[in-house]
């Protein structure tokens, strides 16, 4: 598996898109820091960008990589390599190269700005951990979608729909439910609803850490009240890990039964 990971990784970090992605974060980080001159504000803006953009890039790159390397995967399948190693290796190759673009792209401007001397280093670290989680989650979901759909166009549409649903529609539905059932106690419901969306979850994770109650919103407030900041962080990190593990397990299961 490590060999497959290595090759997928090197294949991807040499592609033009990895550089574009890297340069985007480099530019964004530099602009935010050096024009804004406020580390805390920059982190919040980046959070908003990361929670939307990372899932999008993760899903699109994930399905794209899977479909593009289909024939190559077939070549690998005929080699004496375990099936699941091929897919898990490719998945980790894609997600780690994406995560690396993100971490290095944002890391350079922040390091130059003097992050290591400031107190915000943990907030920034958490932001990057979040980015890593979101990349892992959405690339895994994308690989699942691609494994289930032979048709490229269908796979692509489902991937985009998944992103749209998680990033935009979900919040709308959630909000409408809250309004419609406002006369009922909704704490439990909103806790569950937040945990079933990794994007919401990661947003709350950062806001809990930053301790900005104004931005927490209803769900964040419930989260904080229910778990407290420390436990809240732990629970959301656990839930995010579950979001990585479950799709990966399904990928493992599905890849063993699939025909090529």
């Amino acid at each position, binding site marked *: 598996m490590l*060999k*497959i990971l290595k*090759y997928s990784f090197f*294949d991807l970090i*040499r*592609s033009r898109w990895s550089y574009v992605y890297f340069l985007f974060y480099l530019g964004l980080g530099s602009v935010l820091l050096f024009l804004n001159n406020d580390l805390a504000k920059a982190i919040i803006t980046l959070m908003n960008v990361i929670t939307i953009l990372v899932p999008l890039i993760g899903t699109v790159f994930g399905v794209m990589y899977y479909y*593009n*390397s*289909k*024939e*190559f995967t*077939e*070549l*690998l*399948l*005929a*080699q*004496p*390599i*375990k*099936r699941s190693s091929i897919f898990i290796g490719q998945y980790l190759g894609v997600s780690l190269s994406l995560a690396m673009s993100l971490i290095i792209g944002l890391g350079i401007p922040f390091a130059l700005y003097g992050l290591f001397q400031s107190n915000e280093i943990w907030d920034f670290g958490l932001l990057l951990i979040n980015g890593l989680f979101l990349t892992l989650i959405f690339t895994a979901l994308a690989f699942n979608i691609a494994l289930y759909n032979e048709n490229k166009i269908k796979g692509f549409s489902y991937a985009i729909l998944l992103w749209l649903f998680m990033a935009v529609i979900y919040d709308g539905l959630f909000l409408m439910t809250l309004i419609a059932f406002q006369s009922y106690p909704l704490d439990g419901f909103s806790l569950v609803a937040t945990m079933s969306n990794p994007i919401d979850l990661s947003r709350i994770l950062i806001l809990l850490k930053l301790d900005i109650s104004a931005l927490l919103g209803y769900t964040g407030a419930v989260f904080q009240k229910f778990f407290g900041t420390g436990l809240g962080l732990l629970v959301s990190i656990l839930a995010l890990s579950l979001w990585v593990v479950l799709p990966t397990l399904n990928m493992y299961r599905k890849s063993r*039964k*699939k*025909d*090529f």
Partner: protein
Amino acid sequence: MIQIEQLHKKFGKNKILEGVNLTIGSQGVFAILGPNGSGKTTLIKTILGMVIPDKGIVTVNENSIKTHWKYRDDIDYLPQIANFPANLKVRELIAMIKDLRNRQGNDERLISLFKLQPFLSKKLGNLSGGTKQKVNLVLTLMFDSPIIILDEPTTGLDPIALLHLKQLIAEEKEKGKIILITSHIMGFVEEIADEIVFLLEGKVYFKGTIDTLKTQMETSNFEQAIASLLTYENA
């Protein structure tokens, strides 16, 4: 040694293989023939473990393909469509496959045979179809495995490369290997194959030497024999 018993496979409602029984025990070149969609590639891919059978047993050198993925170490496979990661260079791909298989290959000889030296540091995405097929052949034939499976090996090859391919197949045969080939080019099949396996409607319809087929169909022309095999069925 490849043994296939009662192999069934369907894709959706489309039944491709309906009880294929096939034993390939001795060395030699076996051509798997049949009309389009008769299941040639599916059969090959089942042997390789790429297609999971619905029913039936497939063993390669006494290893059941279901559990022992290492049996693929004994097989060299040439896929039908050669498509490789576009960002890799030819040299890197060859090194990578060697690394993945943990084996040394005699790629040098094949590279000079197919005159691929000028392409070694080019990216695979920039190669023509025929050159890609040559790279594909190098990747397949550089290992010395006891079983070789070639799916449409002639696609896109120029006449000289085709000549080299025939020589290579003959050489491998001399070494006592089992070689499975699918092709639609009957002249090629007639020239190199010892036995043919004819698939029709999901079953092995004919298995035997070309001469047996010719006498059975009462014709001296191989192409005609195949054609009458098809009409014979429909008559």
